[in-house]
């Protein structure tokens, strides 16, 4: 394999500045929405004492999970020694850092007291997985930045492999931590499950790769750099495998729950009569986010089209957001069981399914976080040499295979 030449994107075209301007503007609007929530209090959002985490958390958790997944492409090259993926490693690292920052900003801005961020950074309760996550997230940014440095500085190249290994281990621990936020909630019917951590890891593989594929295709199309079929097919097949793996874990989670009578209530709620959550689960998460992408990836003639790869990646992201919506909000909407087998009622919404309608402010905050992440990528590829000049089959010496 020849030495791949990297170069920064020239930030001269009008399109570049329109793209960056739009992203920054959207991020700013998100910030203003959050500021409004902070001034008025959370009662202007859809969140309540029943649904304490809403759309901002769905988007933030998606971004954080996708961030660790986006780093996988780099890990495949430096940890598992697949040289074909090496040209993609830098973008993989940049995307990982950007997505994580976007997600964290959302989480911070949604706090009841965002002005006390300094408290969260200085006082820790080490029994809390949340406190651990603060370390894991900041550490992830540092570790990935060092990893990028090792990759991009020729003198440091020999350390790429150990740095990549540390980053890989770190990201596995990080996603375990994110999944455990829910896995450790013993009292909630929908969460108390050890499978949450591995489920989140495999979700991160799928969502991260889907985001990576979209960003890769977009940046190569918009900068008019060649992107060959062979590499895209490899990524596509990988995405298909990850989506199938997510399907397997979701299946295992629900089958385990269905076996225990204790969990029949919550399973019935998600799978049968949970209204919007049931709809999101079956139609968006399972059909749109799982079955359709698998068809697009593996079944001819869809599998021969580059556009279908983009579409499959997009649908995986849509399905992923739906999956997190069902897990996070659906899990809270189902009432806590204080007295198993009894009917409960009170002035505090005991025993009833909690209502939740996301407000425009929450949605703007979520979109703002995504746009901030993308803005960082847009600036990043223009400032440093993240993108190879060519990813054509010829340049990569890959056989142009058709699926």
């Amino acid at each position: 394999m020849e030495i791949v030449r990297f170069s920064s994107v020239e930030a001269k075209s009008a399109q570049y500045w329109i793209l960056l301007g739009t992203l920054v503007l959207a991020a700013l609007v998100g910030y203003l929405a959050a500021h409004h929530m902070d001034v008025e209090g959370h009662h202007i959002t859809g969140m309540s004492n029943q649904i304490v985490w809403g759309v901002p958390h769905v988007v933030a958790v998606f971004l954080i999970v996708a961030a660790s997944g986006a780093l996988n492409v780099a890990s495949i090259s430096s940890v598992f020694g697949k040289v074909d993926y090496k040209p993609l490693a830098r973008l993989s690292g940049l995307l990982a850092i950007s997505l994580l920052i976007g997600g964290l900003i959302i989480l911070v801005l949604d706090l009841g007291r965002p002005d006390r961020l300094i408290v969260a950074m200085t006082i820790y309760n080490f029994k809390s997985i949340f406190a651990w996550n603060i370390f894991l997230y900041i550490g992830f940014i540092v570790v990935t930045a060092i990893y990028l440095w090792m990759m991009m500085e020729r003198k440091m190249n020999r350390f790429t492999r150990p740095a990549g290994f540390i980053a890989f281990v770190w990201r596995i621990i990080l996603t375990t931590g994110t999944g455990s936020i829910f896995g450790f909630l013993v009292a909630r019917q929908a969460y108390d499950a050890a499978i949450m951590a591995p489920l989140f890891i495999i979700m991160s593989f799928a969502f991260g790769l889907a985001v990576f594929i979209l960003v890769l295709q977009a940046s190569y199309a918009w900068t008019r750099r060649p992107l060959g079929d062979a590499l895209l097919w490899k990524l596509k097949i990988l995405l298909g495998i990850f989506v199938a793996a997510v399907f397997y874990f979701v299946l295992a989670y629900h089958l385990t729950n269905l076996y225990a009578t204790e969990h029949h209530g919550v399973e019935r709620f998600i799978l049968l009569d949970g209204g919007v959550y049931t709809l999101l689960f079956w139609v968006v998460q399972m059909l749109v986010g799982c079955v359709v992408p698998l068809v697009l990836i593996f079944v001819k003639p869809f599998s021969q089209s580059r556009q279908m790869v983009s579409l499959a990646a997009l649908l995986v992201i849509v399905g992923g957001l739906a999956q997190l919506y069902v897990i996070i909000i659906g899990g809270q909407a189902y009432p806590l069981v204080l007295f198993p087998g009894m009917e409960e009622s009170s002035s505090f919404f005991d025993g009833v399914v909690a209502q939740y309608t996301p407000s425009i402010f929450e949605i703007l905050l979520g979109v703002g976080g995504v746009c901030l992440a993308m803005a960082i990528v847009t600036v990043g590829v223009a400032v440093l040499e993240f993108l190879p000049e060519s990813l054509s089959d010829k340049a990569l010496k890959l056989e142009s295979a058709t699926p």
Partner: protein
Amino acid sequence: MPYTLDTQEVDTARRSFTRGIVALGGLAIAPGVVLYHSAEAKPANQPVSGKQRWGMLVNTNVCQEDCDACVTACNEENGLWSLDRPATDAQWIRKLHVKDRQTGHVTSLPMMCQHCEHPPCVDVCPTGASFRREDGIVLVNKHTCIGCRYCMMACPYKARSFIHEPLQDQLPHSPRGKGCVESCTLCVHKVDRGDNNTACAEACTKDGHQALVFGDLNDPDSEISKQLKRHGGSQIRADLGLNTGVRYQGI
């Protein structure tokens, strides 16, 4: 005058307890420490200690279905004013109606923070703002609460409320404000004052139901310990092993 009465009560309690100890004999472990058990108001300059564990006993057999005196008393004592937004208004104590699907039997009971010995809210709080005081009262240190609401996700009893709007006219002994999480404090300001009771329990007694008994679970001579010893009392979600400070009879 009330002060004198208190002292007499304390003295009686102490005397009878000492008699009990003597009668039991054998238990010759550090009489000084044992004497400390008596319900004596803590001096204001002394920190609370683990010698006490404050708790509450709810007798659901006498709790009236249509009565919410405890809820009203709590709201007034702590300045919890309804903003007519039920989904976001704070509720530290609520009346819960539990109906047996099989028999149709309805039990009515107050539900609030259960002041667990191993509180999940304390475990998950990233900044340690959610904490358990030495004397067993679970509180939120609102100076370090960042409003992440993870404790609300973790609490098995839905005992906590988030403050969803800017507040005004808080009572001096009950500071509360936008962006923090809060819950029943077991009337910690009254406990520290030496009232030896909570607003809800006082209201219940005043209404003649006497379904609520507040007291020191560590003091075998306290009313709550005696009743628990005689009639027993169960924990809600005992399966979670949290060792709650609030116990229920008749469920």
